[in-house]
Each structure stands twice: as structure tokens, then as C-alpha cells.
């Protein structure tokens, strides 16, 4: 049988009609519903992790006041906060949430190519969340080994949740990875195979490029975490010694010998560093699109931006040991990993330049998503620059394991991607619901979030320079830490309480607008990309009505000289009105040529 491109096989529109409430909203195979399911669950667990972080901050600011926080609890909070935020919120929301929502809509497909697998992906993720949260209710509570789960302590007495807690954590991660793999294969296949006619790779919006590259990274990196979780489970349950050398634990010699804890660290960070970019690349892509729309200007240096995303993705696999400069690995590795790490700064810097240059000579509308995106440029610049400290092996020596690290990675991988998530939610909410949220409330949410987040994390860097270590329940008795550092801790905690509280504005606004929001119209931001050109808002199952769209231009035809409007949708054919395809026509397209 002759091969027919998916984009041309358009006779299956009838498959996309759900019949009952259950198939429409629960066991749904509609990528948009699945996206929202992912979104709701991940934001819910994110709020739990947020509450845990406030408890940690309360303990650090007032170490003698909150009797319900013991060291045992504190280390459990630290661990669960970190793991939930990185894996179950950021990864799930960017890829499961926005990946699902945007890929078919931006690529002009009716749905993911494997809708059933997509549904399974969400419910498997849901199961992993249930297993994770169950660990709060088992004897011993959740694991308190730190989100990095470094053995040997993870499975030894002396660490909270060293029996059931860690067991559930490892199981939950394994299940999560299964869910991610089902989703991830779907995203990659859909992007490569189901783009509509005319949507060449070099016409794809950067959001799709970011999500695509991040998913490829995830498919290559998560297996490293999976095998390390399985190996640790074997150490825990079957008495193998993958990560366990001969040790003396609590006066006894457990039956382990010959394993190496550093092996786990290599496996963990071989996953863990790409994981940073699994979160960052979708954020890079999405923020590029939002900046372009609201600056009414094409993204600056599109091709450079694509290659920067791909280049960062590739390099992210050869920098992992910069998390391990002081781990006791062979110190000669430091030369290699410091060099690769600082090289990755170059494409990252290019992205920052191009965002700012996108604003340059633009016609900037400071809509809510734009505020968050510009806020992102500021915090990401800060977080990226402090990465140059920690990536440079020598500079890392005094700063490693201090609050400088906490400040750095929260700025670069906490605040910055979360600002993009807010930008993205405020940007696409009108498409998802057909309603516009309350704008003054959303602006208040931005100002309070942006300012309190920055005042929360900036001072932490200075505690780190002083030498204040991370993961400490209390600091009494260290003479080099002056009393003023404790006052600073109180200030940081105040900022964190403000930051946590104002998130209520966000939640309330989204729920309120579902019912009371004004109708937003199909394309409130006057954007060019395909998701704004759907026949209905919110789009129905199947997205496009009877005819699939066809794409004639790249995603960034804003303010084209001579054009009637200051934007030209991607699916608008050329009428000789001076649309400039720039150089993007000569792009290679393996699938459609």
C-alpha cells in the first residue's frame, strides 16, 4: 500500500466524537482534556509541595517555635518538596500539560497519533501521584533522604522513611517514568508524523521545538533514573550491593559489600541534568512565542533559536558531573565537566539575547502573559549567571552544598519556569476555556509573585557566600554564622509566605473565570499560530472541523511591511501582500518533501 501522510488521511474525523460524560471527561482520549487533567493534578501536587516549603521556611526562621516540626519531619519536607516540584509538577505540567495541549493544535493535527496511549499516560501518572502521596500515610512516613536519594543513607536507619517511604518513592518514580514514556513517544511521533500540510520543521513555533527536544531528552534520560531506582529497590529488598559498600551502620554491619555510592550519583545526574532542560526547554520555547506575540514582532533569530534549543539539549548529556565536583569522583573529571558546562552557557546566552532583541524595536503590549515573560527574562538572566559560578569547578568548591546553590537553582529552575507556566496559562486560558480571566487580579498576581520571589531567592545567595550549609534543620552553634544571618532568614521566610499566599489569587481567578469570565473570542491576542485559528473556541474534539488547516508561512509573521494587519496567521495563503518568508523556506523537511 502506498504511504499516505497522516495529514492527508483526514477521513477519521468521526473517531473524535466522545459519547458519554465518562469518555468525554474521565477516560478521555482528547489531548486537550488530557492536558487539563495533567494540569489540574500537577498543580494540585505542586500546592502540596508549596505548603511543605512554607513549613521548611517557618522552621528556618523560627527554629524554636513550631513544635510540630522535628528534624525527622523537616527532612521529609525537604525531600518531598524537591521531588514533587521537579518531577511531578514541572515535568508533568510542561510536557503532560502544555505538550499535550499545544502539539496537535500548533502542528495542525486532530489529536495525538496514539490517543489511547495518551489516556493511559495520564492515568499512569495519576497512579504515580497516588503512590507518592500514600507515602505520607505509611509507618515511618515518606523518605527524608533528600530529593537526590543518595545511597547508602537512603535505605539505612538514621534516615526518615528508610523502609516503606523509600520503597513507595522508588515505585512511584518507576510508574511515573512509564507514564512519561507513553506520553513522550506520543509527543515525538505526533510532531514528526502528524503535522498538517505545509508545516515544515523550520516553520514550527518554538514552543513545539522546545517541547520536542525536551521530550527526546526525557526519553533518553529517564531510563537512567529508572535503572537506578530498580537497582536501589534490589539493594533494599533483595540484598544486592549495587550502591552499597561494606559499612558500619548504627553499630551493625549490614550484609553489603563492594558497591559504590558514586555509581548512583552518576546515574542520577545523567538523568538529573537533562531533567533541568526537560523543564527549561519547553519554557524557553513557550516564552519565545509569548514574547513574539505580545511584542508584535517576529522572534529574533528563529533559526539560531532552534539550533540553540537542539544544541543545549545535546550538550545537556555531557555536563552531568558538574553536580558532583565535590562528590569524591576522580577530580580530573572536573576539567572536562567545567569546560562543557561553561560551553553550554553560550547557546543559553544567545537565547537571552534573542529574547531581548525580540523586544527591541517591537510594539510591546504589556498584557498579563507578557508581564510574566519579561519577569522571566529578568529572573532567568540572574539564575543563568549564578550558574556560571557553580559550573566553574573552582568557584563551586566553597559554594557547593550551601544556600548559594539553593538560591541558584530556585531562581533558574523554580521561579523562571514557573513564571513561564503562569505566562502560558494566562496566554492560553482563553483558548482552553473561551473565557478571559480577571485582568487586574492577574496583574496583582504577577507583581506580588515576581517581587516576592526575587526577594526570596536573591538573599539566599549571600547566605551561601557566607558559608551557610543547605539541608540544615537549625544553625545553632556554628560560630561563623552571625546573628544577622538569622534575621535575614526571617526576612526570606516572610517573602516566602507572601509568595505562597498570593498564589491563591491565581487559583481563585482561574476558577472564578470559568463561570464569570467574559467571552474571550477566538484570537484575543491576534496571534499567528494555528491554535488560534480553530473554528471553535474552545476547540472541539478533533480540533479543526471538516478540513485540516494548511500552513503557508512561518509562525512569526508579525508587523510584516505592507500587510493589512500587524499579524498574518500561518494558514493564510500568500496573496502577494508582501509576506516575507525570510530564509525559513530553505529549511530541510525530512517527512514531507
Amino acid at each position: 500500500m502506498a504511504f499516505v501522510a497522516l495529514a492527508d488521511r483526514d477521513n477519521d474525523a468521526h473517531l473524535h466524537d466522545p459519547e458519554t460524560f465518562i469518555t468525554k471527561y474521565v477516560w478521555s482520549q482528547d489531548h486537550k482534556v488530557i492536558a487539563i487533567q495533567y494540569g489540574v493534578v500537577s498543580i494540585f501536587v505542586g500546592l502540596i509541595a508549596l505548603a511543605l516549603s512554607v513549613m521548611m521556611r517557618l522552621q528556618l526562621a523560627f527554629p524554636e517555635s513550631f513544635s510540630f516540626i522535628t528534624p525527622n519531619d523537616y527532612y521529609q519536607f525537604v525531600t518531598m518538596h524537591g521531588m514533587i516540584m521537579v518531577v511531578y509538577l514541572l515535568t508533568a505540567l510542561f510536557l503532560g500539560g502544555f505538550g499535550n495541549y499545544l502539539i496537535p493544535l500548533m502542528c495542525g493535527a486532530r489529536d495525538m497519533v496514539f490517543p489511547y496511549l495518551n489516556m493511559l499516560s495520564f492515568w499512569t501518572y495519576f497512579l504515580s501521584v497516588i503512590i507518592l502521596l500514600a507515602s505520607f500515610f505509611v509507618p515511618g512516613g515518606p523518605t527524608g533522604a533528600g530529593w537526590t536519594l543518595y545511597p547508602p543513607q537512603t535505605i539505612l536507619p538514621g534516615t526518615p522513611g528508610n523502609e516503606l517511604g523509600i520503597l513507595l518513592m522508588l515505585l512511584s518514580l518507576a510508574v511515573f517514568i512509564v507514564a512519561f514514556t507513553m506520553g513522550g513517544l506520543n509527543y515525538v511521533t505526533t510532531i514528526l508524523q502528524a503535522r498538517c500540510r505545509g508545516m515544515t520543521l523550520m516553520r514550527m513555533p518554538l514552543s513545539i521545538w522546545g517541547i520536542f527536544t525536551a521530550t527526546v531528552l526525557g526519553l533518553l534520560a529517564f531510563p537512567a533514573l529508572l535503572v537506578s531506582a530498580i537497582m536501589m529497590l534490589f539493594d533494599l529488598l533483595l540484598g544486592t550491593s549495587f550502591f552499597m559498600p561494606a559499612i558500619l551502620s548504627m553499630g551493625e554491619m549490614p550484609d553489603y559489600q563492594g558497591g559504590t555510592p558514586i555509581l548512583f550519583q552518576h546515574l542520577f545526574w545523567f538523568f538529573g541534568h537533562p531533567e533541568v532542560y526537560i523543564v527549561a526547554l519547553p519554557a524557553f520555547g513557550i516564552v519565545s512565542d509569548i514574547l513574539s506575540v505580545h511584542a508584535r514582532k517576529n522572534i529574533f533569530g528563529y533559526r539560531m533559536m532552534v539550533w540553540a534549543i537542539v544544541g543545549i539539549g545535546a550538550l545537556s548529556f555531557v555536563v552531568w558531573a558538574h553536580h558532583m565536583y565535590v562528590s569524591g569522583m576522580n577530580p580530573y573529571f572536573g576539567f572536562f565537566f567545567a569546560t562543557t558546562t561553561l560551553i553550554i552557557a553560550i547557546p543559553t546566552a544567545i537565547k537571552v539575547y534573542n529574547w531581548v532583541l525580540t523586544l527591541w524595536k517591537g510594539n510591546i503590549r504589556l498584557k498579563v502573559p507578557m508581564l510574566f515573560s519579561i519577569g522571566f527574562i529578568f529572573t532567568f538572566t540572574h539564575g543563568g549567571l549564578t550558574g556560571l559560578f557553580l559550573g566553574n569547578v573552582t568557584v563551586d568548591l566553597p559554594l557547593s552544598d550551601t544556600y548559594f546553590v539553593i538560591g541558584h537553582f530556585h531562581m533558574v529552575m523554580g521561579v523562571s519556569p514557573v513564571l513561564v507556566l503562569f505566562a502560558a496559562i494566562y496566554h492560553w486560558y482563553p483558548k482552553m476555556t473561551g473565557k478571559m480571566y480577571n485582568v487586574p487580579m492577574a496583574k496583582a498576581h504577577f507583581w506580588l509573585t515576581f517581587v516576592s520571589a526575587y526577594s526570596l531567592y536573591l538573599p539566599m545567595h549571600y547566605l551561601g557566600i557566607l558559608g551557610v550549609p543547605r539541608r540544615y534543620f537549625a544553625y545553632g552553634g556554628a560560630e561563623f554564622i552571625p546573628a544577622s544571618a538569622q534575621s535575614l532568614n526571617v526576612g526570606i521566610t516572610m517573602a516566602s509566605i507572601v509568595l505562597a499566599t498570593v498564589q491563591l489569587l491565581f487559583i481563585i481567578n482561574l476558577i472564578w473565570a470559568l463561570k464569570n469570565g467574559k467571552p474571550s473570542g477566538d484570537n484575543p491576542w491576534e496571534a499567528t499560530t494555528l491554535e488560534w485559528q480553530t473554528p471553535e473556541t474552545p476547540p472541539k474534539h478533533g480540533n479543526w472541523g471538516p478540513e485540516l488547516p494548511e500552513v503557508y508561512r512561518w509562525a512569526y509573521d508579525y508587523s510584516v511591511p505592507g500587510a493589512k494587519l500587524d499579524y498574518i496567521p500561518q494558514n493564510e495563503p500568500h496573496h502577494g501582500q508582501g509576506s516575507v518568508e525570510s530564509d525559513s523556506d530553505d529549511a530541510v523537511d525530512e517527512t514531507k518533501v
Partner: protein
Amino acid sequence: MALAVVITLLIIGSLIFHFVSPWWFTPIASNWTSIDDTINLTFIVTGIVFVLINSFLVYCVVKFRYKEGERAHYEPENKKLEVGLTAITSIGVIAMLAPGLFVWANFVDVPDDAIEVEVVGQQWRWSYRYPGDDEVFGSTDVSHMTDENPFGINPEDPNGQDDVVVYDDGLRLLKGRPVKLLLRAKDVLHNFTVAQFRVKMDMVPGMVTYLWLEPTVTGEYDILCEELCGIGHYAMRGRVIVEEEPAYSNWLAEQTTFAQTVRENTADINTGRALYAVCASCHGQEGEGNEALNAPRLAGMSSWYMESQINKYKNGMRGAHEEDVYGRQMVPMAATLANEAAVKNVAAYIASMADTTVTETIAGNIENGRRLYTTCGACHGKQGQGIWSTDAPRLAGQNDWYLARQLSNFKNEIRGYHSSDATGKQMLLLSKMLKQESAINDVVAYINTLQP
């Protein structure tokens, strides 16, 4: 507009915070000024970039804000500009990386004249070993580790006999002499950090890691563990004392060698029984304790714990605080034990006593006590049985009034405050988790329910 103003304020605010912040590096006490130089260089380069990019951002937000009827400039690419920016960035990156790599080469390469000292980490304390006159360490293995040989030195290895073992004191280093610290961990990951030295390294069970430095300023500094190592991580503290000659050599000469500790480990229970007569007047013939005389039960306590506490009384580390009324009574009593052998003998006799039962005097919320005890159990054992490797004595079966008093002594810093009392300091830090008065009673009431 507001956005431009706020971002401008944040840029200025960050700069002001940077320059007036009192939170800055501790005064350096090692040769690693080159690390500080690299950091300062990085601050200059990144600071300039931070200000430039964000100022340009502010400029764009103001200058190119939305105006009805205006159009943005259409310019998809500008190769010249992009190549130029890439080149400048690369130069900046090289300027930071190159000096960093030179300093790292220096850190990796230990000078030939460095003396070697071993630092051993375990949950949650530090100990140290010096190679002795032969300048060679004896080999070690986990299988040799006991409460009498906490370093696990191979007793058959002649190189280990003269190794100087320092278990209850700080680390001493010689000013002006490079030292290579060989780092070892017995149980889980730890990390040796002294903020004033700038360098740090993880300690990994199953292998020996290292770092080197040259102390340049005499004084005492905190050693912190900076790799999460369990519940007591934050209480894993040590002291390093940098000295000059001859203080350093004199101190080293006074320390016991491995061979000496082995020799001294033969205790005589019969001699101990005779010595115990003094103790019996308060603690009772059976070691059962006496609340009226404020003397806790001794029966059932291990010899290693009794030894260490008697020695603390003798050395002014316990019972020296003026508010520690009952502890002060023990000081003259401990002084009657003339030498190390007498201490060992009486401790061995106490350890041989049969268990006695105690009456409960304290009630509390046992459920809350159970929750709080999770943290205690990490060192003292789930059943309060005591664990020698964590220096944590048996709690189960002890007089509850005594436990409550000691907890409040630790919490009020009248016990465990002495700078050389490493284990006491740990309890001082940990007891702070009992934030309410009732918490002490709760946890003690729970300990009453434990059966070792």
C-alpha cells in the same frame, strides 16, 4: 511603565544589596586566596552582564511600548549581530573558565611536602587519625570496627600500631604546613567543610577521598558536614584548631596511639567492684539509682558510655556549669578515680551489673512522644537500647526524672556546651527540637514504654 520602574529598582536594589550586604565570605584561613580571586572575577563579569542585559530590557520596555497604529520593525535575523554577541560571550566565558581550571589543577595536585591526616566521618561525629612516627597509616577495614577500635585499624598491621587516634577531641593542624586530608566515611556520605578554608570534599564509604590546604591563620574553626547524612546531619559538628610549633607537636605527643588503646582495653572487674563502693553511696549497691539523692540508675549502662561520662566529669566537660547543681556533685566523686585504668575498671563493673526496674514518675502524651522519638531513635535505637557507634547511651529503663532533667539541661545549654564535648554539643542541638515544655515529658513518657 510600572514594569520598567520595578525592574530598574530590582537592578539597583540587587547592586545595593551586593555592596552593603554584611553576609560575605568569612575571613580566609588557608592558602586558597586564588579561589576567592576567581569568584571575585566571576562576580565582575556576571555583574556587568546582569546590569547590561536588564538595563537593555528596561530600555526596550520603555522605548518600544505599545503605540496605537505603530508597527514593529520586521527583521527576522541579523547574522552580524548574532555572531558578534556569540563571540563576546565566548570571550567572557573563557575569561572565567581559564583561571578556574588553573586553580583546580592546583587543587588536584597535592604538594610533595604535605603531611597526611585522616578524617573519619560517621553518623554524626568526626574523628581523626595521624600516621605516627613512621608516617604511614595502618590499613583499615569495616570488619575490624568495634567500640574499642572505632577506626577499624587492622590489629595485625605493624604500620597501624603507632597511629595516633583522636576520638573525643578536635582536629589539630599546623600553621604554614600543607596538609593532605584523607577523607573516609564509615556508614553514609558525609562532607568535610570548613568555611574559612574554602575547600570541601565528600566522604564516601568504601573509598578514600582527599583535599589539601595550607592553614595560614591560627585559631579554632567549625567543621560542618555538608552532605545530607540523615536526621542528625545538622548536628554533625566538629572543631579544627590551627596551631604553631611547639604547641602542635606537644599536643600530638600527648595523644594515645592505637597500640596504647589496645593495651588499655583490659579492664579488671574485681578492682572495679572495690572502686564502686564510693558510687554505691548514692547510686545504690545494685546500681538501681536513688531519686531522693538525684542519682540515676547505672545498672544496664554500657562501659563505653560510663567511661566517657566519667572522663567528661573529670575533664570539666560535664558538671562544670554553675546551674548544673546535680552535675557539680559528681565532679569530686569522679575525681576519686585516679587514672584511666580506674575509670575503665569501674565502668566495666557497672556494665556487669544486672538490670533493675525503675518506677515511672512522669506522665505525658505518649502518641506525641512516639512522634518526637523518631528523631531520638535514629541514634539511641528504636527501642532505646543504645548504640555504641553513634555514642548514644541506652535510654530504655532509665529513671524518667533523670532523662527529663538531662533533656532540659541540654536544651538550656548547661550540659553539652563545652567546645570539646562533641557528643554533648550534638544533644544540645538536637534537644532544641523539643520546643515546648510538655514535649520533654511526652518523649520521656514514651521512653518509659520501651523494652530494650
